[in-house]
């Protein structure tokens, strides 16, 4: 087991007081806090190594290039990918999904094809497919969710067909924390000749991930939810699929050659090697280096330990929340089938009221629809409050959270 009290010493922000109360940060599903190791790495990069990467011969550029490439390798190792050729750095999960939608979907999806999307998806795994379907005419079909928020695998297996070209699914729901069996989804998809794109925004920071074992085709995730800086994330893709795909955006860095042909009076272009083919323009170099440090930090803790700690906190928090008469928790009550996310409401108060009340006591949670409106409609909710945990949260913080929830019930 990891020691959250020792971990907390690495997070300067956790020493802050908010409204004269110690900060309790339970909004980790939105973004995580950053350890001083990541903050120092960013500072050190700009103070000592900053330069543009690739195609320069000077020392600083060599150092920056080496660090940036190492960052890809570190992220590849973290999810057991075959190498940095399978890791494209992007702004975050949303950009990663859009990259797949446009670079793979645009040339491969046509009228009569089907794209299956689960109803528990974050809007970022719904909207790109809906936009693209208007351009090429394919059909988007939605996979049902059971009453407890789990995926209806039977419905999925009944609706998939040879028309299905790609299945879009999150590994962990950002609303309920439910863990989906994406290995099963990928196996069924492959049996029908379809690919899978997995939204790993809520899973990669919290669970041990082995893309070879899961056998998914694409995995998208964000650095800022896993102790890294904002504006950096990664898209894993199987090398053979990446090789067949055309670039997402055009510009510098992603080309090998742009040559003007005097006869045709056009430029002929050859693409750069993977992963640079998908990284047009000057990338977020420092973000990548910061993400590398975040990954190192998590690897040192051990992802099995991260998972066990969050599972313990979730189970404890859900048990204690049941002491509150007016608190209703949504989704499965078995902590072992979910990550550290608890959606709830307090009878008689709106989710925003609950969040503002908790904020008054220094407790940060999220309220609203969490970019998962279809799932809220299934649960017949106008909005929900969401507490989400990470490595630095403690049982004492949960106890304080429960105390304040009990106060809200009295209002």
């Amino acid at each position: 087991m990891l020691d959250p009290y020792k971990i907390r010493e690495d997070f300067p922000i956790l020493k802050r007081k908010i409204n004269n109360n110690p900060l309790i940060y339970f909004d980790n599903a939105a973004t995580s806090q950053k350890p001083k190791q990541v903050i120092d790495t960013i500072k050190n990069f700009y103070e000592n190594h900053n330069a543009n990467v690739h195609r320069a011969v000077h020392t600083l550029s060599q150092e920056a290039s080496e660090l940036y490439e190492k960052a890809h390798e570190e992220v590849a190792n973290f999810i057991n990918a075959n190498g940095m050729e399978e890791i494209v750095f992007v702004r975050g999960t949303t950009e990663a999904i859009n990259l797949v939608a446009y670079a793979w979907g645009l040339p491969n999806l046509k009228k009569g094809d089907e794209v299956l999307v689960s109803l528990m998806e974050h809007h970022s795994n719904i909207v790109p497919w809906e936009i693209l379907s208007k351009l090429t005419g394919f059909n988007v079909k939605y996979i049902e969710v059971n009453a407890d928020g789990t995926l209806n695998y039977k419905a999925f297996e009944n609706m998939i067909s040879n028309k299905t070209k790609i299945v879009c699914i999150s590994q962990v729901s950002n609303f309920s924390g439910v863990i989906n069996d994406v290995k099963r989804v990928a196996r069924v998809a492959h049996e029908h000749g379809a690919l899978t794109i997995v939204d790993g925004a809520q899973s990669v920071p919290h669970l041990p991930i082995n893309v070879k074992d899961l056998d998914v085709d694409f995995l998208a995730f964000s650095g800022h939810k896993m102790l890294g800086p904002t504006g950096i994330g990664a898209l894993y893709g199987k090398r053979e699929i990446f090789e067949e795909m055309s670039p997402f955006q055009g510009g510098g860095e992603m080309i090998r050659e742009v040559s003007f042909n005097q006869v045709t009076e056009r430029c002929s272009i050859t693409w750069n090697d993977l992963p640079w083919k998908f990284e047009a323009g000057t990338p977020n170099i420092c973000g990548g280096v910061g993400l590398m440090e975040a990954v190192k930090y998590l690897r040192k803790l051990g992802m099995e330990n991260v998972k066990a700690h969050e599972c313990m906190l979730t189970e404890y928090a859900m048990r204690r929340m049941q002491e509150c008469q007016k608190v209703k928790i949504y989704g499965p009550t078995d902590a072992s089938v979910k990550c550290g996310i608890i959606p709830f409401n307090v009878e008689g108060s709106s989710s925003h009221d609950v969040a503002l009340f908790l904020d008054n006591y220094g407790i940060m949670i999220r309220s609203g629809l969490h970019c998962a409106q279809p799932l809220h409609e299934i649960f017949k909710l106008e909005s929900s409050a969401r507490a989400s945990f990470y490595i630095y949260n403690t049982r004492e913080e949960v106890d304080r959270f429960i105390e304040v929830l009990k106060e809200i019930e009295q209002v």
Partner: protein
Amino acid sequence: MVAIEDYVARIEETCGKEKDFIVIFKYDKKEQTVAKILKKAKIEKSISAIIFELTFKNVSFRLYGTGKAIFRNLKDKSELQNVLADLLL
């Protein structure tokens, strides 16, 4: 000329069907702003003198001592701005 922007840092319109408005008052003026509002609005309920259920011209809202307020059941942002103008100016 004093404007509501002198007191209000940000207005968040919540997503979904509820369409609540959360008003975040300027941090350095929050005590002054809270006092101003408490002077004009009717206090329906006070919780530990840090959270207040208030009504003002048939609009009910909740005000937090931390300098935030949540307004419900308003038609749109312009109605909110009118209420804020009456409360603050």
